[in-house]
């Protein structure tokens, strides 16, 4: 991260990188909004099975959802630790977020594999296509987040991350929380309210 963006005082009094990131999140809302809308529009329009009711495993996904929600909590703790200069706990919590993300991705790999095993692929029906593209896009976002967290953790281990870099951790946190919020919408719309 370059430090230049915030080095000068800004017209709106908000760090430029943070403002850009909020704009990015706004843009991402349209991306996921389009994916989720398509999923809902095509709900119940598959010409063959399996249907969501036959295949979605709500108990298992509840566990991975809980794991992702907890990782958001650890993200908050990681940022707080960086801000007060407590790098020992910052390292622990950052690694915790990364591992939490990896566990979530592990659940998703397991879920995708078992769906394929039970006969649901991208090509099976509209449910398969919309489900895999939507949750796959979300999984790709989690993967980027995990890479980001590992990077921050490595920087912390190298002693190159301190309270003066709290803003970079804060922005990574914005991303992580956003990806988490999107998952809550997906979990509600796709899993809990399935038809």
């Amino acid at each position: 991260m370059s430090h230049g963006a915030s080095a000068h005082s800004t017209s709106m009094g908000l760090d430029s990188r943070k403002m850009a990131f909020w704009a990015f999140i706004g843009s991402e809302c349209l991306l996921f909004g389009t994916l989720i809308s398509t999923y809902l529009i095509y709900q119940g329009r598959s010409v063959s099975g399996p249907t969501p009711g036959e295949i979605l495993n709500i108990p298992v996904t509840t566990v991975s959802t809980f794991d992702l929600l907890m990782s958001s909590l650890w993200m908050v703790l990681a940022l707080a630790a960086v801000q007060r200069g407590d790098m020992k706990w910052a390292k622990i919590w950052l690694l915790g977020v990364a591992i939490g993300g990896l566990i979530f991705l592990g659940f998703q790999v397991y879920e995708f594999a078992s769906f394929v095993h039970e006969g649901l692929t991208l090509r099976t029906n509209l449910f398969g296509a919309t489900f895999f593209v939507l949750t796959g896009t979300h999984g790709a976002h989690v993967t980027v987040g995990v890479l980001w967290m590992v990077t921050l953790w490595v920087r912390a281990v190298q002693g190159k991350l301190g309270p003066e870099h709290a803003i970079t951790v804060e922005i990574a946190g914005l991303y992580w929380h956003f990806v988490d919020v999107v998952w809550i919408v997906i979990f509600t719309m796709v899993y809990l309210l399935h038809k």
Partner: protein
Amino acid sequence: MSESRGLRSWLTTTDHKRIGLLYFWTAFAFFLIGGLEALVIRAQLARPESHLVTADTYNQLFTMHGTTMVFLALMPLGAAFFNFIVPLQIGARDVVFPRLNAFSYWVFVLGGVFMNASWFLPGHPAPDGGWFGYATLTERQFSPGPNIDFWVLGLQILGIASLAAGFNFIVTILNLRAPGMRLKRLPVFSWMTLVTSFLIITAFPVITVALVFLMFDRVFGTAFYLPAGGGDPVLWQHLFWVFGHPEVYILILPAMGIVSEVLPVFSRKPLFGYTVIVYSGVLIGFMGWGVWSHHMFSVGLGPIADSVFSLTTMLIAIPTGVKIFNWIATMWGGSLRLTTAMNFAIGFIALFTIGGLSGITHASPPADLQQTDTYYVVAHFHYVLFGGTIMGLFAGIYYWWPKMTGRLLSERLGQVHFWLTFIGMNLTFGPMHLIGLHGMPRRIYTYTSDLGVDRMNLWSSIGALVLGVGMLLFIYNVWRTRRHGAAAGPNPWRGATLEWATTSPPPPHNFDVIPTVRSRMPLWDPHPPPQEPSPGPVHVPPGSWWPLVSAIGLPVMALAPLVHLWWVALVGAAIILFGVYRWAYEPFEV
């Protein structure tokens, strides 16, 4: 930057002015390519039952003409001015993320080259599904070749360039304004850049998802738009036009911003109704999201949807009309100087008004059903995009050329260029209204004499030739100006905004001292605030290779579905990852 000349300095530049020039020349080259495609189309249509090109080639020509003009010429020509002018207008040293800016440019070039490379492959499989790419025509079943793949992948690459630029300019304009430049003192061009940037970051995600669905249909065999699998081709139309209509405003708002700068300077009067013009632009930005289904009246969405979209379409004409009246009122009673830039700006008002009015005629579904898919619609949107956007862009080119290069374009040649363009434009697109009302359909490679449109088509083709001659004259003007153009000086037009407060071309750091602003037109301020003395040398950020390296990863990734080798995508991703990490951790102080 250590060196300021040579290829390396251009490949690594992060200077918004150099990136602006790169945008300009690249977009202008694509503009000539798109124009050449249009000339071949008009040559083919000059007489009935012509066989100059085959039907298949004709499909490629109108597809690539539209796609090139929208994504590779008009949008990036606007971006050239965003880059060069906006940081100067707001009194900044650069955009807020200079390397992201370079990244946008390189992604744009590579995306444009990627899509056009299809012309040169064996069998020249250039895209041929129209710039709107309607499913199911674009599905593998009906378009088995790689043509549509080039289109789908190329547009995804280009979308990333636009998104990155959108974030950059939103933050630049909101956060890097000179002291005292409140939002209500922001020049209108910068305002319209801000609105356009918001439209870009909200509209492009929608087309990206629509393209991803189409790509999955074509590459992985899903059925997002295939009725056989329960999918709905109308979903493509909705997603495309939910993006497509804001896109129309992405194309026109920068031109509206340009004429709002040019008209006051050459009328020696402040812009009439600044606040109303700005609010109208913002309102157009919002309302642009609520009219997309007027592109789809012929689908048969039902009377309620048709009525609602008909109403919103008529409503959006109001803020547009407000702007037109304000521009006219700006000229009213002013001491007009009819320079080439001013002529193009006035031409913009006249022609855009015609295009706006014909647009309102197809806001009504019953009328639209008669006009849709005919040349009447072609006439309409060329009056908007040529009569509007291109005239506005040329006003900007003549107005800002001295700032960008330090030399004035020849006014004498410019005046001839203007009149050739103005007459040629009306001769080309005027008759198309009648050709369309006679019933000649769009996108068909030829027609027969019994339609009774032979002579009008010939006139239209002659008009296109006139436009071509005008363009050659412009190129000669540019060429001649390199050596023989009069030196411009800092402010040749006695402009009012901050880009004229520095030398032409500006130094790498733009301003020795960041100016303090106390009014909307700081250079016309009778009592300008005292400027601080120069603090000495100003730090200029060095160049960087990593935006270019990261950008190269994208077309490499896009090759994977074309060559059916999935490890290629991994190579592309690895290049991006490598570039981004080097970028993130290289020392780079702004």
